[in-house]
């Protein structure tokens, strides 16, 4: 009877705690200055050039990347601390978050040197926003059904087709898109897709807003009509994208953003329940805190295992599965627990406001970046079932 699931008992090292103090001091300053609004709920989803530039100036973007690309050669654990503190503060990180977490690492791995020298430093300065061009009208979780085409032309490729549900596309500088360069083969339906770096200012690209149930504009439909992408913007192997971008997934799946996206509701719930809650409120709160603590320990442990050069693929997928379901249920649990709170409570208004927002964004949490259903398939594979 061997244990298939492993969580090393990592505690963040002292340099991380020193950094945490710096990040908290910065957050306090920014709250004072008004760029972080503790009473609002939408902060974490806000796009702020000024704020992202400040985070860049602090040296907290591209933290793990080589210095020659503007990075800071710090550890993934240090990056973890910055991510969780900014997330908990609900800071406006939308501009830089995707670029820092996943687009930059893809460029580092697959882009030619001169592109890296140009784009990566801009990400590190907090001046560069990325979108991810994966989903299409008839291709969501089934990535390999993508049909948007890249056709070879002189010195590059012409893109034609439509991407959809593309977050940030209307304000992004670049997209990393997945386009069809060949038909799939009989033996391998995953064959024939290639990753490209696309400058969003390219002629022939149109972004049409798709409004979300929150009322916000985040999604877009991105239409490509003979949009030209030069040869040196191909990322990795032509027709072989399916072999790429799997190693970084463990980082993407297990980070603190996979369970902290609605954290502000929990904090506000503590205020609504007050210092001496009844048994029902205390039990509900205690369970939520126990669950949150457990998730964070799982997530920190995965970060530690990645840092140590291990490949905790199964554990990382589990963190996202359990974590996103938790953060999705959190507003509903908080609502139930606050059902008997005094309407006159001083913080009822911020609670209601935050709860309303968290409730409306909750459905996306188990869809974005790999649905629950897809994740469970990955976990099942990790268990050896398929």
């Amino acid at each position, binding site marked *: 009877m061997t244990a298939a699931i492993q969580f090393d008992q990592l*505690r963040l090292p002292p340099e991380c705690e020193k950094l945490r103090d710096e990040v908290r001091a910065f957050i306090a300053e920014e709250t004072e200055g008004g760029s972080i609004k503790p009473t609002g709920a939408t902060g974490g989803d806000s796009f702020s050039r000024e704020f992202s530039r400040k985070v860049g100036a602090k040296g907290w973007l591209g933290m793990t990347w080589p210095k020659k690309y503007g990075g800071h050669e710090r550890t993934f654990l240090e990056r973890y601390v910055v991510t969780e503190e900014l997330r908990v503060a609900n800071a406006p990180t939308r501009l830089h978050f995707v670029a820092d977490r996943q687009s930059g690492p893809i460029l580092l791995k697959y882009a030619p040197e001169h592109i890296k020298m140009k784009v990566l430093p801009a990400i590190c300065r907090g001046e560069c926003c990325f979108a991810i061009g994966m989903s299409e009208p008839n291709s969501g979780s089934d990535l390999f059904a993508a049909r948007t085409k890249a056709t070879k032309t002189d010195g590059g490729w012409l893109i034609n087709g439509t991407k959809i549900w593309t977050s940030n596309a209307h304000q992004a500088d670049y997209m990393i898109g997945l386009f069809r360069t060949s038909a799939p083969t009989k033996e391998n339906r995953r064959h024939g897709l290639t990753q490209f770096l696309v400058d969003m200012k390219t002629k022939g690209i149109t972004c049409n807003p798709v409004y979300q149930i929150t009322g916000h504009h985040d999604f877009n439909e991105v239409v490509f009509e003979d949009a030209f992408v030069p040869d040196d913007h191909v990322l990795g192997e032509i027709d072989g994208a399916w072999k790429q971008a799997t190693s970084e997934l463990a980082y993407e799946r297990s980070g603190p953003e996979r369970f902290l996206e609605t954290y502000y509701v929990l904090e506000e719930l503590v205020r609504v329940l007050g*210092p001496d809650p009844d048994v029902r409120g*205390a039990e509900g709160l205690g369970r939520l805190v*126990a669950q949150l603590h457990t998730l964070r320990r799982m997530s920190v442990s995965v970060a530690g295992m990645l840092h140590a050069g291990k490949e905790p693929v199964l554990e990382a997928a589990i963190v996202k599965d359990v974590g996103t379901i938790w953060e999705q249920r959190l507003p509903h649990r908080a609502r139930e627990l606050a059902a008997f709170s005094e309407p006159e409570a001083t913080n009822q208004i911020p609670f209601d406001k935050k709860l309303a927002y968290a409730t409306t964004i909750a459905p996306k949490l188990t869809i974005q970046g790999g649905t629950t*259903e897809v994740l469970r398939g990955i976990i099942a594979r990790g268990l050896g079932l398929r």
Partner: protein
Amino acid sequence: MSETSAIVAETAARIFEDLADPQTVNQAKDESWQAPLWSSLEESGLTLAWVPDTLGGAGASLSDGFEVVKVAGRFAATVPLAETLLAGWLLSEAGLSSPTGAMTVAPSRWSDELKIDAAGVLTGKARNVPFGKSAEHIAVLADGPSGPVVALVKLSDVRPSDGHNLAGDSSVEIAFDKIKAVAHAAAPAGLDRQRFMLLGATVRANQMAGALETVLAITTRYAGERVAFEKTISKFQAVQHNLARLAGETAAAVAAAGSAADTFANGILDDRFFLEAAGAKVRVSEAATEGASIGHQVHGAIGFTKEHILHRFTLRLWSWRDDFGNESDWAVRLGRMIAAKGADELWPLVASR
């Protein structure tokens, strides 16, 4: 896990594999397998791992002991190994030597009222004492005239009630009707009911995490063997998703229990240990509820039979939820602590771990 902990865990696992294989134990006509298992555990020093050699024990580290406890959970063997470890620790803390043989502990319930006078005479009642019928001694943390006192009582001096938990392991009520302790000493500063319950909760949480690991392992294996509708049931998405959820619950249990053990082993005993231990007992118990029911669902009718080993794990998972504070109890205590500290202190506490 340190190298010594890994060796200790391996030693324990080998003993259990040889002498308490769940399949063999499940088919045994009587309990005669328990004696050789116990003597082997005792000979290798595992039962008194948490007792320093000056007090008659093996003097292993706290982490080593937690590994042993987790392995014991993986085998769901019905010997009071975890209880003896805990009793040995309690006695050692008060500077008392541990006797040989199996021990158990009290209290395992918050509601127990146990008092001891200056002469070492115990009064009060302990409920749901695990293995109270089969152990030889019980280590008791009782309220003395000037603070908590640790006492050692011979179980032949008291008359335990009949009683057992869902899995049939003895779980008894013991009335201390002016019973003289064999030995007693004041508990050191800081060792009160709460700290003892937190440690008990951490121990049970680790046994439960071990049991859940086995439920996941045997359920995954079964799904890969059982054929229905002309394919192994592991090929059905609904079954895969159930197993993925079971893996998630097991993962949460393993992470939470291991983290609490690691915290205690590192001598952290303040609010951080409270969060870790109470949090672990809450989360692991929730995982036990979810995990055991998925294990049964995937196994179908065969898992509901005496003949199959699944019940050895699920029945204990359900029972262990109640020892050393159940999840509702700890959740209320944790929730009250968080509420009293206030919203601004929540994240700093969580992030401190």
